[in-house]
């Protein structure tokens, strides 16, 4: 479970020219609260620059909130990031892989970092490699692999420690339909395994396919937070994309 309570992130921005500089504080995320339940897929929607990535980075312990907090799988993020990070699988379009390592070395590295016992690490690695079809290129350096191959390895490294919480930030961005489909499958399987899944996207067809609960974020603030069924019932526009645009424009 993920529970966000008044999560806020402020950034200082320098403006002005020459010696006349002004520092203004901008709230990239402003008092955001929502709950993601296990066995359900929570979609965080919003236009570019709305604060999705910042929110997810705070949940994943990559950046610290200015105020407010989040409880991830029973651990308060303000009590230390490392305990939270161990419980999370974080996959985004910008979580690249180490290009000079091969998939075997990559997964071994992540497994050791997550302190998996050696036998468990080997077992889980073999399971994921088999399931994702990585065996054929397990000794090839990541830098020499295709985007699809890389994405498979990224999925394996996200799941190697069998995390209770999975965070996907625009995970299919820039991928071809076949590779994107493997991610969709992964998200669906995670839900079936009773994991807590949160994902951000602006591809409404993906949302329609996966989403159980939904929050829309605009200019750093939550403008909608309810079940996807409820969202669809309340819809006044003829399709999801238009409804999303209307709600963002009205905010």
């Amino acid at each position, binding site marked *: 479970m993920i529970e966000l309570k008044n999560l806020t992130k402020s*950034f*200082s921005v320098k403006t002005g020219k020459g010696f006349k500089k002004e520092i203004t504080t901008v709230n990239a995320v402003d008092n955001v609260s929502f709950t993601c339940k296990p066995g359900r897929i929570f979609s965080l929607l919003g236009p570019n620059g709305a604060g999705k990535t910042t929110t997810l*980075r705070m949940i*994943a*312990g*990559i*950046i*610290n909130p200015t105020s407010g907090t989040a409880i991830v799988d029973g651990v308060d993020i303000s009590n230390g*990031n*490392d*305990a939270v*990070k*161990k419980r*999370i699988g*974080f996959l*985004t379009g*910008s*979580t*690249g*892989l*180490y*290009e*000079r*390592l091969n998939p075997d*070395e990559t997964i071994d*590295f*992540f497994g*050791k*970092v*997550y302190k998996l016992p050696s036998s468990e690490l080997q077992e889980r690695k073999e399971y994921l490699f088999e399931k994702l079809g990585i065996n054929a290129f397990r000794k090839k*350096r990541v830098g020499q692999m295709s985007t699809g191959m890389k994405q498979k390895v990224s999925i394996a490294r996200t799941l190697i420690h069998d995390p209770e919480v999975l965070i996907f930030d625009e995970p299919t961005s820039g991928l071809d339909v076949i590779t994107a489909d493997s991610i969709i499958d992964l998200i669906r399987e995670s839900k079936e395994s009773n994991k807590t899944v949160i994902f951000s996207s602006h591809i409404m067809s993906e949302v329609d396919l996966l989403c159980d609960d939904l929050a829309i974020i605009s200019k750093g603030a939550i403008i909608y937070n309810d079940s996807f069924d409820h969202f669809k019932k309340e819809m006044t526009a003829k399709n999801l994309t238009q409804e999303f645009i209307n709600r963002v424009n009205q905010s």
Partner: protein
Amino acid sequence: MNDLLLIIKKELSELLRDKKTIINSIVLPTLLVPILIFGAIKVTELINKNEKQKSVKIGLVNAPQNFVDIVRNDTLNKITNYDAAIDFKTLIDEGTIQTAVVFPLDWEQQMDSLTTSTVQIYRNGTKDNVNKRVSSMLETYNTRLKEQRIAQLQIPVEKMTPFQENYIEVGEQKELIGKRIGGFIPYLFILTMWGGCLLAAIDLVTGEKERKTIETTLSLPISKFKVLLGKAIVASILGFIPAVLNLVGLIAGLKLFDGIPDTLKLAINEMLNFQSVTMIMLLLIPFALFLAGFIIALVAGATTFKEAQSKATPIIMLIIIPLVLAMMPGIELTWATVPVPVLNIGLGVKEIMAGTIDMLQYVAILLSLIAFAVTAIYFSYKKFSDENAILK
């Protein structure tokens, strides 16, 4: 500790698979000094050989026969006789002759009357080879004339020599050479250390941003401090290795190549003994960490390799200036220079090689370098923790 080792192992594996790193941190530093030594020996030999084989075109005016004989003895000299002093500047500029020696018209009379005469030498100060050879011939002629006069005046030789200088060297050869060339050695390996650290630090921080792996690294359940420390240690190793290889190359170069004077060879061998090398290496460990931390702090905000390089490159002046100062003869290791980074290493290595290091000052240098390393790591951690800089 385990997490730190995991980071170090991962970063080292990654860096050592990069051809650029292998060439810059291992191949070049190992070969640099032997190539420099071999090149210097060969080039000097070649220049000397060429100079000796070059003919010198000399113009002579009123030259006495015995001087002409001296000039003719060197078969490479080409003599042109002139009746009087003419526009030698133009002739030298045009290359018709390279130098001209003008004796006065009444030279013989002046010599007979044992007076001091004047010989005019037209020359271009930049032509060292020509000038050296002409000076040598004139000196030979002058000495010969002096001896003739002494004989003619029947003066015993000892009366013309009030005293002879007899130098007794009390300094050891090692001390003498250590002080003279000891400053050059840190110049060599600190610059390669800087290059190694720079390349590694940029690859480990800015390179991660370019390869989009920084967010992956930050999502690991390892504290940012350990991640940063791991990177700094790896960058310092990649700076330390080239410095060690430089020294190995220097020792190998001295052993392998002929043409180095035996006294110099012996003195350097004595200087680079186990104790000196260990003492130098001990200084380089905290210094490498200091450099790595310093460079990481500098490049943490850069988003591209180019930007990182342009931020870090001007700082090389802060390395070169103290190193040049350390090579200057008047600057010594004192309590005032002990805490100045780079300068203290330069001067310290000089003293270590000369065998004259004060152990108290050595310990002070070591402690000051450790303090600088800790400070640099602290600042790099601050920059690495700056979300605006690192996730830019």
